[in-house]
């Protein structure tokens, strides 16, 4: 091969205390399709953002044609020939297709010649082998068409490095094939295509070389022909055992608390069936986009399922809203602490008592603050929440303690089923161990617990049973004692 068109040399990026990228070096050559794989949180997204000027590296260098460059913003990266398309297309719904394609061009005349622009747009779109009227509004297009418009924009910018971030995630098979055709055509014209996907079969069908990232580091780069799915998976999950938590014996009882049969929601997940027994911890594993959270949202009534059956302790129930779910004793601890979890400006005590507010309300809606504080103090002790004052805003706590407040809030409701979504994301290792111990203690009290986690070591140490989801379906199930990283990952990526 010739000179690399883009080179990342020892690039690191940290956000506060978290190191998202550590000393990553990667070279992209003209005329190659370079696949990038890794678990959730391996640093792929951060790497792309550094390449396209959304983030600036904390250390290391980006080189284009061997010359060091600094991308202040995406515009600068585009002028150097680096562009990206994403799973969710970034189009301007109110603007026409042609405008969407040419919006970021700076070398065009200031005065727009609409006819010429439409003609040029038509020609570029035709090169992609699709038919879209350049005069249509982008908001009217299908997702696949919007993606084509994005690719057309990249081509029109005389792109030399095209990054495709999970481009196939929301496409039909037919559309994926067309996308592959486009990627190959671009490669043959000398473009370097960086293709990020969770679907290993796509990687092997499409790419010339493949790089693996794990925990913010670059692990390997080799020709795709010289690798196997098993080899890639081993590199994606391979960890030293030191960071692992010890497993505890299961506490599952005989009675089934939650049973889900054939649960489906159009466009999200299909035919999901499983059961959680009292005192059992079931972990729902899978990659981003496997629709695990959608199942949780259906069980909690935020986005109810449109087919299937939910049984609680043998009784069929209908859950149409969070209110229904809470009445039935289902609690959901969201993965998004800031948006869906805590009222950060409210006091810690008020947050803890919120779902069970009825218990603290006297005549005329008067809230019994003393009782609220007493109960909150009880939880602070039990969960070891490190807070100077229970009347301080929840936003003043550290991430780990916020997570504990979230748990306290739902425990205060006395749930029979507890669904926790990414319970330890972004919290330190000590707090993580405490949260795990807390979940085990709850299981010991007979609560049925469903944990959604992308953190495989966590899943393996916590789960009595592991369910694996892929593309909206349950793809596999393992007993907690015998599950391994590689086995779970193999099902999650759909390896054969």
């Amino acid at each position, binding site marked *: 091969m010739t000179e690399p068109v883009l080179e990342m040399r020892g690039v690191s990026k940290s956000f506060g205390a978290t190191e998202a990228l550590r000393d990553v070096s990667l070279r992209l050559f003209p005329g190659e399709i370079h696949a990038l794989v890794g678990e959730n949180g391996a640093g792929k997204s951060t790497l792309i953002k550094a390449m396209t000027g959304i983030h600036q590296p904390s250390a290391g260098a980006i080189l284009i044609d061997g010359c060091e460059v600094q991308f202040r*913003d995406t515009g*600068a990266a585009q002028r150097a020939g680096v562009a990206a398309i994403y799973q969710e297309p970034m*189009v*301007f719904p109110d603007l026409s297709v042609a*405008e969407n394609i040419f*919006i970021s061009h700076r070398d065009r005349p*200031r005065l727009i010649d609409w006819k010429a622009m439409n003609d040029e747009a038509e020609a570029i779109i035709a090169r992609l082998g699709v038919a879209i009227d350049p005069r249509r509004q982008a908001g009217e297009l*299908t997702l696949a068409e919007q993606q084509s418009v994005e690719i057309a*924009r990249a081509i029109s910018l005389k792109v030399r490095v095209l990054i495709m971030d999970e481009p196939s995630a929301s496409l039909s098979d037919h559309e994926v094939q067309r996308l592959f055709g486009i990627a190959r055509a671009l490669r043959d014209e000398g473009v370097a295509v960086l293709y990020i996907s969770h679907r290993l079969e796509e990687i092997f069908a499409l790419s010339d070389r493949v790089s693996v990232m794990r925990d913010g580091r670059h692990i390997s780069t080799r020709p795709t022909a010289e690798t196997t799915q098993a080899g890639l998976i081993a590199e994606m999950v391979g960890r030293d055992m030191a960071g692992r938590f010890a497993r505890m014996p299961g506490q599952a009882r005989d009675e089934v608390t939650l049973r889900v049969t054939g649960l489906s929601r159009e466009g999200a997940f299909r035919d999901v069936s499983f059961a959680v027994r009292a005192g059992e911890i079931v972990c729902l594993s899978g990659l981003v986009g496997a629709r695990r959270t959608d199942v949780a949202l259906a069980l909690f009534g935020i986005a109810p399922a449109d087919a299937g059956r939910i049984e609680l302790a043998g009784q069929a129930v209908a859950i149409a809203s969070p209110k229904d779910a809470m009445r039935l004793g289902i609690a959901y601890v969201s993965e998004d602490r800031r948006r869906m979890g805590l009222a950060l400006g409210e006091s810690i005590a008020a947050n803890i008592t919120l779902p069970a507010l009825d218990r603290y309300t006297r005549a005329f809606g008067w809230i019994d603050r003393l009782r609220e504080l007493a109960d909150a103090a009880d939880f602070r002790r039990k969960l070891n929440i490190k807070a100077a004052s229970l009347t301080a805003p929840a936003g003043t706590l550290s991430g780990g303690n916020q997570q504990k407040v979230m748990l306290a809030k739902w425990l205060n409701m006395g749930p029979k089923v507890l669904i926790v979504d990414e319970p330890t994301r972004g919290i330190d290792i000590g707090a993580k161990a405490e949260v795990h111990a807390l979940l085990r203690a709850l299981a010991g009290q007979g609560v049925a617990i469903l944990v959604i986690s992308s953190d495989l070591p966590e899943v393996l140490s916590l789960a009595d049973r592991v369910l694996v989801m892929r593309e909206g379906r349950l793809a596999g199930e393992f007993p907690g004692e015998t599950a391994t990283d590689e086995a779970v990952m193999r099902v999650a990526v759909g390896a054969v």
Partner: protein
Amino acid sequence: MFDRIPAQTLRILILLAVFAAVVLFFSAVIEGYLNARLFNRISTSVAIVAMIAVGQAFVVLTRNIDLSVGSVVGCVAYFVGGLLAAWPGMPPVLVVALAVLIGAGFGAVNGLFVARFGLPSIIVTLATLAIFRSVLVESSDGSSITTDRLPAWVPGFAQANAAEIGGLQLRWMVVVALAVVILAHVFLTRFRAGRQFFAIGSNPDAAKFAGIDGARTVFWAFVLSGALAGLAGFMFLSRFGNITVVAGLGFELKSVGAVVVGGVNIFGGSGNVIGVLIGAALIDLIDTSLVRWELVSEFWREAVLGLLILAAVVADTLLSRRLMARRRRMAARQGTVGAEKRA
């Protein structure tokens, strides 16, 4: 048939139809309604509102709002009037330039807070609405500008005709306003820089990813809104001559009304200043006509304006939802036909 007409054009046609219907209605209920005086009166008053509304449209396109325009009009009218009273010999070009510059300065203050510091425009401009007005009240010390203190060319400008056909007078200020509308229209539809205002409002994230400097675009939208409010302030001075501390009160409501009635999406991203001009004319027409209609108390005028804004937003939302759904259905049908052909 309607599917072939772009949504924007359809909107303007509907607006024109409503405008014609309103004229017909009032000429039926008010005796001697349609005459040259009505045209002269409404056209001069629309000239001022339309200019402010065009500036407002730029701001609304970017998903923001400028509530301070009324105070800017008042401030500029008062300050420029004061300068003219002190130095009556100032050349007219300098006077107009000063009005625009002072207005742009006010706009830059708004733009700085919204674009640079990322504060919500509704709060920033609500604050500056009050602050600019207080600046005016404080610096005027309660005294007013009166016509007799102004050089004769100032009130003269508002009366000057560019053309006259059988009593219908085309005032110079109307010509200026029309020129502003046409320039803004050409800029917004034909210039790359103009399309950026649409892009920012249509999808701010995509704009960032496309390398568009959102903060700068929003800043200039506010500067433009301020500058046009400044120009309107000079026209206001010229038309009324007597300027008190309440000058320009309520223009924020009228300009936002014109923008919304004129079909600019209040959530940004789409719109057309020709529509805004018609929206401004429609609002002023109804406002002026209600004064002459004995059946309706004058105090209902504001309420009617409010109702009109609500009606426009409701109609617009329903219309565009229908249109979008219908076109999507058609596209889907074409898509399946195409797929069958391929298979």
